[in-house]
């Protein structure tokens, strides 16, 4: 039943989901809780396999949770699934479409599936075609459209019924840079009127779009806060790109000997015989000059020590490193 007292468009409490395959159990979600008020763009951030897609598939009614409760616009996704599905627009990961259909026929089919008919159907199609810029390919088969236009068609079907909640799973996945910019502009526009829940592992996307970030790691919430808070500098989280003319193994062991944490190897920043690079994290008490001296004491002369990314990247890398 609808709970009119709540102002939250999305309310999730203790959501858990375990996949069982061949006797093995994978805990995709472990007691996940979060909320999204009206008019917020909430980014689900996390490395691959963090549980982002599982969480939104449960919200969209495609998967059933093992435990916990999720509500959309006050309706329970398990017991009022039809009401929930009528109120949300969903663009799944990889944007599945009926490629044999023309854009127009696909949108008509999607609109009728959402119960639209007559003049309201025609108006809805006109509106989403204008919103997503599909006029040019309106009569074209989806199989003949570029990936960018297909992504727009996927977004258009999610907007037909003017939903209160828009769920976008990796909306810029596979798009070229121009299409990425265009898609982000669209999402930003939509976010002015609707609650948008998007998943991504692309940090610039989060920084460009999100009001709030929920960072997931192995099905658990690691961070939940406004983007601006997460962008504030944090003591104790300093990532450095490091490069030295030695083997990767020597660089990794020198890093450990210097008291820092080796995160991942990286491409060499410039062409030099024997140059190897990586990403390291410094402990909170250690300054960069102190780290450089420790490296030299361990027999490695750093040719580059560059602070990396913003604090958001630090959060993300921390989650990745803890996998």
């Amino acid at each position: 039943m609808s709970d009119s007292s709540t102002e939250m468009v999305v309310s999730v409490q203790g959501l858990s989901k375990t996949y069982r395959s061949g006797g093995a159990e994978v805990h995709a979600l472990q007691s996940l809780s979060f909320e999204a008020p009206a008019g917020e763009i909430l980014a689900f951030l996390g490395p691959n396999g963090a549980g982002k897609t599982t969480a939104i598939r449960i919200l969209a009614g495609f998967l059933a949770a093992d435990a916990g409760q999720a509500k959309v616009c006050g309706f329970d996704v398990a017991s009022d699934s039809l009401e929930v599905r009528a109120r949300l627009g969903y663009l799944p990961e990889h944007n599945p479409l009926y490629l044999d259909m023309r854009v127009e026929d696909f949108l008509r089919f999607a609109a009728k599936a959402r119960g639209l008919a007559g003049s309201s159907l025609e108006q809805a199609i006109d509106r989403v075609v204008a919103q997503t810029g599909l006029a040019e390919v309106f009569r074209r088969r989806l199989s003949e459209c570029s990936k960018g236009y297909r992504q727009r068609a996927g977004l258009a079907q999610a907007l037909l019924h003017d939903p209160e909640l828009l769920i976008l799973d990796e909306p810029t996945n596979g798009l070229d840079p121009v299409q990425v910019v265009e898609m982000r502009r669209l999402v930003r526009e939509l976010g002015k009127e609707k609650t948008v829940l998007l998943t991504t592992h692309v940090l610039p996307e989060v920084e460009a779009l999100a009001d709030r970030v929920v960072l997931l790691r192995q099905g658990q919430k690691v961070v939940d806060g406004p983007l601006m808070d997460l962008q504030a500098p944090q003591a104790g989280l300093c990532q450095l790109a490091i490069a030295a003319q030695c083997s990767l193994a020597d660089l990794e062991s020198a890093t450990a000997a210097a008291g820092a944490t080796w995160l991942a190897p990286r491409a060499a920043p410039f062409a030099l015989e024997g140059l190897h690079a990586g990403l390291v994290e410094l402990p909170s008490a250690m300054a960069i000059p102190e780290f450089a001296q420790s490296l030299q004491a361990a027999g490695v002369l750093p040719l580059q020590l560059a602070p990396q990314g913003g604090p958001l990247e630090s959060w993300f890398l921390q989650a990745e490193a803890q996998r």
Partner: protein
Amino acid sequence: MSTLRSALLVAKREFMAAFDAPAGYLVLAFLPALSAVLFFVTGPFFAFDTAELRGFFLSLPWLFVILTPAITMRLWAEEKRAGTEELLLTWPMRLRSLVLGKFLGAWGILAAALFATIGLPITVAALGDLDLGPVLGGYFGALLLGGACLALGLFLSACTDNQIVAWLGGAAVLLVLNLLGGAATAEATPPWLGRVLLELDFGKHFEDLSRGVISLADIAFYLIMTAFFLALNGLVLLRRSWS
């Protein structure tokens, strides 16, 4: 949106999609072409010198072994392979509407293929005095038999994302269901098991209908089989969301 309205929307989409590709027309050509060959060329029609279509109708359970899984193999397996089932199952339509819609779409394609065999009764009527009663009864029975075969094929299509597996599985199970009558009369089969096998034989229930004899028991058998496999289809989809 009502269950029936959603079902008709899905049925229309499936029917149109089938004839949007050459495969749909192949299905449409298969039944009249092969049934005409079996009836006029290899069958005893001219030898018996009677204007009746029983030989044609008796071949249908065997032709449906190949034809009906070919119609249904794509319906769920392709949705799963392409990922479009995630769209379909997250639009505000009930699961029963989707299953019923897929079934009605497939049934429409089969009805079109049966309609394409209309040349047979027209030809036989031109050659002799054809009694229309058994012909209408036969087509009615063919729709019932076909419905049960399609429901089975849909269920198997929902179990896989591979169309070939769906077709092979459907054809194999239908073949077995058509051979149950033979197994029932085998010497080694206990009488009680023989009776059960005979009752489950898909072709046996069509024999009276193919003569134009409408039996409530035969109609009920095909309707129950159709409902049973459609329910299984729904359960497979439901179980997937819990897996």
